[in-house]
């Protein structure tokens, strides 16, 4: 069921071996996930903190909200920029599934662009209007931004689940909202949202602990660090439970596929689970992050590692979902190695330019007459 509706694959070959595109898709998705976590989780935490601060600009939570959104005015841009690459590579590998999924919920998929624009501009309006020093005028904008990013997450989870389950296409075509009733929809959505909250909480704690360690506004930064840390701890507690729930609501074939996949699937999954439990222990053992900067950095590093590994597992789950309709099927390839090498070299050069530029900027302070 469903297979007869899968559009024919484009007759033109893909310009590289499949594994290369799988690799690029996973790697660029991981980069995207880092910034996306900060955008989604950071904005949600900021909105919550801003509201509970009661609009008092000197409340540490309002300061935290201002900080998070100052970072996010750049973070959102980088989320979009890093999101372009996985969007490109998914189209190379999964065009027939991906386009069909987006067409089936076309109005919502279009709306995602609008929500992104509204969310982004709302974040800027908050930054210009509502930073703590200037009062709480921006709370509304911050809530708008948070709502938009949450809705965007909902749209993406929907597209992902539709594209990976062609057997549900007929039902979705009749009623697109049916995807919200997919057993894995909500656990999956919250898996992403909780990751965003946990990661952003850790970033906040890490940054504030560092500032406090340098002796800057020690009391304020300590409070912010502890606040961020609590977000990371409690969302990770729920995350572990949600992760297991998500695992068990996966279709049986996918779950069995994961188990039977041998080292290729079991090593990443097991490693991620073990690391997540380790993360939980690390989080629960620290009460004042400022005093344990080493542990804080280690915890943040572990979190990044887990996100990287889960990016692999997420991709493997998609492959397993599609296994019944794609097994024994190979994409025609006609590698353009020269172009790939050009891309790789330019990527390295570009990262060097970015590094050199930022370094130059950081070491060229304005001074007197010379001030730019």
């Amino acid at each position, binding site marked *: 069921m469903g297979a007869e509706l899968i559009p024919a694959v484009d007759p033109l070959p893909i310009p*590289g071996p499949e594994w290369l595109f799988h690799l690029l898709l996973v790697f660029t998705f991981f980069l995207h996930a880092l910034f996306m976590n900060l955008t989604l989780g950071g904005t949600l935490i900021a909105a919550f903190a801003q509201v509970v601060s009661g609009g008092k600009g000197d409340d540490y939570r309002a300061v935290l909200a201002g900080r998070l959104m100052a970072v996010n005015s750049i973070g959102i841009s980088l989320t979009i920029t890093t999101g372009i*690459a996985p969007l490109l590579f998914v189209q190379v590998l999964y065009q027939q599934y991906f386009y069909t999924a987006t067409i089936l919920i076309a109005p919502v998929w279009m709306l995602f662009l609008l929500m992104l624009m509204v969310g982004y501009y709302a974040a800027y309006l908050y930054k210009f209007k509502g930073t703590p020093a200037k009062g709480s005028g921006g709370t509304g904008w911050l809530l708008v931004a948070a709502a938009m990013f949450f809705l965007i997450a909902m749209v993406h989870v929907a597209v992902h689940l539709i594209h990976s389950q062609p057997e549900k296409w007929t039902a979705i075509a009749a009623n697109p909202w049916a995807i919200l009733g997919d057993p894995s929809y909500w656990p999956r959505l919250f898996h992403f949202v909780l990751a965003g909250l946990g990661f952003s909480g850790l970033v906040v704690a890490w940054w504030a602990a560092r500032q406090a360690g340098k002796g800057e506004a020690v009391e304020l930064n300590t409070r912010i660090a502890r606040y961020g840390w609590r977000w990371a701890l409690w969302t990770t507690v729920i995350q572990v439970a949600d992760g297991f729930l998500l695992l068990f609501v996966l279709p049986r074939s996918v779950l069995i596929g994961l188990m039977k996949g041998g080292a290729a699937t079991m090593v990443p999954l097991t490693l991620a689970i073990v690391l997540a439990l380790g993360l939980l222990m690390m989080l629960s053992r620290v009460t004042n992050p400022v005093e344990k900067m080493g542990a804080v950095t280690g915890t943040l590093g572990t979190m990044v590692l887990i996100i990287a590994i889960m990016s692999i597992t997420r991709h493997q789950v998609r492959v397993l979902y599609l296994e019944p309709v794609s097994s024994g099927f190979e994409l025609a390839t006609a590698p353009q190695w020269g172009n790939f090498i050009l891309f790789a070299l330019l990527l390295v050069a570009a990262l060097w330019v970015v590094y050199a530029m930022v370094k130059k900027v950081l070491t060229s302070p304005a001074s007197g007459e010379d001030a730019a």
Partner: protein
Amino acid sequence: MDYPIWDLAMGGGVLMGLVAVTHVIVSHFAIGGGLVIAVTETLAVKKNDREMRELAKRSSLMLILVSTIFGAISGVGIWVVAGLISPFAISALIRNYVWAWAIEWVFFIVEVVAALVYYATWDKISKQAHVMVAWVYFIAAYLSLVVINGIVSFMLTPGEWLTTHAFWDGFFNPTYFPSLVLRTGIVMLMATAFMVWPALKAGAEARPRLMRYLGWWMFAGVLVSYAGYRWWEAALPETIRALFLGDSPALAALADTRHFLLWAITLVLVMTVIFLLVKPKATRAIPALLLMLAAFGFFAGYERLREGSRKPFLIHDYMFSNGVRVDQIAKLREEGFLSTARWAAAAATEPGVVTGRQVFRAQCASCHTLGGYLAITDLLPADPDMIYSVVYTLYDQAEAYTALAPGEPVDKAALDYPFMPPLVGTEEEMEALVEYLATLVVPDETVARKGGI
């Protein structure tokens, strides 16, 4: 056509037009703005010119708010819309040019980071370092144009690619360099059209000087654009040029578009000379607005001409606007259109009108709506018997394509309906289509509206 069809009342083409036009205007401004701002700040630092520096600074806020946000999102928007209305075309392009897009993405990373750094570091770092960031931004932005221009121009003139399917044959296609020159001119026009606004905010003393300075940019932009445009026209294959050029152009509407864009650029030139170069003191919001509209008009006119002269193809001589490929025609005539249009086939549960409606949705609805843009109800002959003749003329038009040798261009001007793809499928499918279309023109419209399209 293998894909499900999104029933969009306004028509997919209109949506794409809206997203694409706003994106190209903003993205060309993002590139040109980079150039003009970098030069302006460099000159300001060299001459210690405070007003010039202010102009660059004020423009840079616009650059970041408009370009990095709206430009980036609307750019993704083009992919999103293309994936919804022409998934077959975007996937064909991606299979050819994924590395080009990946490379463009690399430049885009540098562009975005440089824009963010540039805006955030005004007055915070040394002037030299700040100017350097501006140049990094512009170079990265321009290189992204160098890349994307290969893909956009390929769609109109794929050239040797049609026979070789080789990346570089399609990339450096016959209109690549003319388009690049034209777009280089356009980026200057867009940058100046936007930057006149922050310049208006300068003090009364400095304003005329800044206007005149921008006037020279606009003047140069007009010259480069015009040269690029003429070169582009000359580089087009004769079969395309004949559509809108010569004593009796095949498509009057396209010839009108060409006249429009030439008048628009003339207007830009005249207004530049008057408002910016000769009488800059008197220039206020209304002249600035008129100048901006004329520049947009030229650019939009060119884009429309380019898109229009590509019809009925999405990738010229390779894929039609409804996703049917030239190399598929013979097979589809034999095995039936619904043999590949899977979603339509699944819905074609009965012969006759029901099947005809699905053929229409999968083969015609990428351009024609029921009651909106290019509404089929307005275009069909009033006499149902005439529909048969229209359908079969379009059906026979397929033979003009099947007779071609691989890579040989079709003489569009010689076709009865040069704008339209041929109808493909079996005779039964054509009969069904005629039956369905007839229900759209019979007086009792309830038959036609049943279930919409």
